[in-house]
């Protein structure tokens, strides 16, 4: 113990000094990582399905430009869009699983008040069902009889919420297309009877653990997830699996009824844009160029997505030059 020399008031003052020092210390610790980082940070809001390829592309981007840290955040596409438009969180890139999310949530009315006025399509995907060897009917399911196996009594099918998640309504659209393609009236209804509300989550990847633990037998999901999680999946015909942008017109016949509206099928094309107020818009354009170029497209294909040949854009004239150089206009459907 140090001898007490201070009068009481001094003791109080040192207490305050200690308190201030402690608060400053806390402030330093809290602010530390930000303050210490002289690096630039590229913030990406992306659909959850993009986590694996984007992580790989992030790594390439950081190696080519060591002054940059890429910080991706993944979630439902609509959720990520609303974090920009409703919560005003700063993001340099928004990448969504359904290109329609961008015009719906980020385009303004008549060119005014929008968060962006262009987007690029950079990857394709397909709806499929995944299963495990333990799933009911797994031993005799084929790409021909799948809708009969899935409609058997006692089969539990998981799917995503069609009111909030693209893969939820895309599953309904695929089943609607299957009904016409296989000429089996009532197909969708019989399959969906085994996919009741209790097997619905806000995003289908939340159900992968339930599939692996045997709580559900089949899960409607993207082909990319099937590849990345090494799950058995059905090879559905491209007439119904929403994977082919050239079939856009045919897919529109697949209708999903949701709480808000009836949604017509569209090819599953992932789209990205740079929202207004992006803190690092120039870096974001370089990142998108990497994503659209041969390196990025190779990673996209490796992780179970379809590459875009070529990448396409809506209103490419508004995109940064580095992006514009790599895209063709979006085909009219």
């Amino acid at each position, binding site marked *: 113990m140090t*001898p007490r020399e201070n009068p009481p008031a001094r003791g109080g003052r040192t207490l305050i000094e200690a308190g201030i020092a402690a608060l400053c210390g806390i402030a330093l610790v809290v602010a530390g990582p930000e303050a210490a980082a002289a690096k630039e940070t590229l913030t990406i809001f992306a659909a959850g399905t993009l986590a694996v390829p984007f992580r790989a592309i992030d790594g390439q981007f950081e190696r080519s430009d060591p002054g940059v840290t890429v910080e991706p955040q993944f979630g439902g596409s609509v959720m990520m869009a609303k974090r920009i438009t409703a919560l005003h969180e700063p993001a340099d890139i928004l990448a969504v699983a359904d290109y329609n999310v961008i015009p719906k949530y980020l385009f303004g009315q008549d060119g005014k008040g929008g968060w962006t006025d262009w987007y690029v399509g950079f990857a394709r995907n397909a709806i499929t069902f995944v299963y495990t060897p333990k799933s009911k009917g797994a031993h005799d399911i084929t790409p021909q009889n799948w809708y009969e196996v899935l409609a058997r009594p006692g089969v539990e099918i998981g799917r995503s919420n069609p009111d909030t998640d693209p893969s939820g309504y895309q599953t309904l659209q695929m089943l609607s297309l299957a009904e016409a393609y296989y000429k089996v009236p009532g197909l969708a209804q019989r399959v969906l009877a085994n996919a009741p509300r209790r097997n619905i989550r806000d995003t289908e990847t939340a159900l992968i653990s339930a599939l692996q633990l045997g*709580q559900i037998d089949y899960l409607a999901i993207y082909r990319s997830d099937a590849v990345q999680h090494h799950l058995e999946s059905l090879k559905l015909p491209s007439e119904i699996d929403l994977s082919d942008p050239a079939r856009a017109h045919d897919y529109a016949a697949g209708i999903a009824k949701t*709480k808000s509206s009836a949604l017509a099928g569209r090819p599953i094309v992932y789209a990205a844009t740079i929202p207004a107020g992006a803190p690092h818009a120039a870096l974001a354009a370089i990142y998108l160029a990497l994503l659209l170029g041969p390196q990025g497209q190779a990673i996209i294909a490796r992780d179970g997505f379809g590459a875009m040949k070529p990448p396409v854009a809506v209103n490419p004239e508004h995109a940064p030059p580095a992006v514009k150089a790599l895209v063709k206009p979006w085909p009219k459907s």
Partner: protein
Amino acid sequence: MAARVSDPPAATGNWAPAAALLRLVFWLLGMVLLAVVALPLLRLALAPSIANLVAAARDVEVRDALWLSLEGAALAALVAMVLGVPLAYLLARGRFRGRGFIAAVVDLPLSVPHTVSGIALLMVFGRRGIIGAPAEAYLGLRFWATLAGIVVAMVFVAAPYMVSAARIAFAAVDPRLEMVARSLGLGPWRVFFRVTLPLAWHGIATGFTLTFARAISEFAAVAMLVYYPMTAPVKIYELFLRFGLDEAAAAAVLLLAVTLALFLVFRHFAYGEAAAGGGR
């Protein structure tokens, strides 16, 4: 700096300024914390318009979700109390090997990420789980998308609060009071219910309140087992995805209002009991 002088202990002198300063400093620090806690809640409470609040209150789905949350959290707090208070007593009074280990295990759910909790619960209570499979086969009891699943998930994440609060409350009861009661001829069951439990009641009631609060706020672990039927937190998340901030905030404010009202009732109840019968 002055030379080292061994002052006499300052037994005399006017300490009033220092005491005032202490209170001032403590108030300042406390107000900072209070601001961090209260400002976001206050901002949230003011976010939705009256029209949005009315619309949310009239929405049957929102009301159902609120009611289901209240029901689930009340059941979870009751289950945690009935099963947790005896364990807390054993931990406070028992002198057995592994006591510290058991106490640590009970607290462990506090540090498990809630999505991980949900997966762990599914492993045990799911269709093929070691409890879920026999429960469905022999009792017809399912935890997937049922109230039972909501309660199990809530108990898992919230029970540590019950056990901790009750254990501290039991530890604060002087064992000599129990010994006196025993020496006066009361049996061990009556001593527990007539002496120990009333003395520890305040702490147990606090534990019940915390458990209820933690349970009603749980999202991830509940949503893993039970997305439909929707509890209030799941409903609020869905409203945000479907409509936006205003609708979600309105439902959140309703949940806050109901919870706050319940807290005030609980607190009144707990402190009233303490004032009447605590006497420590």
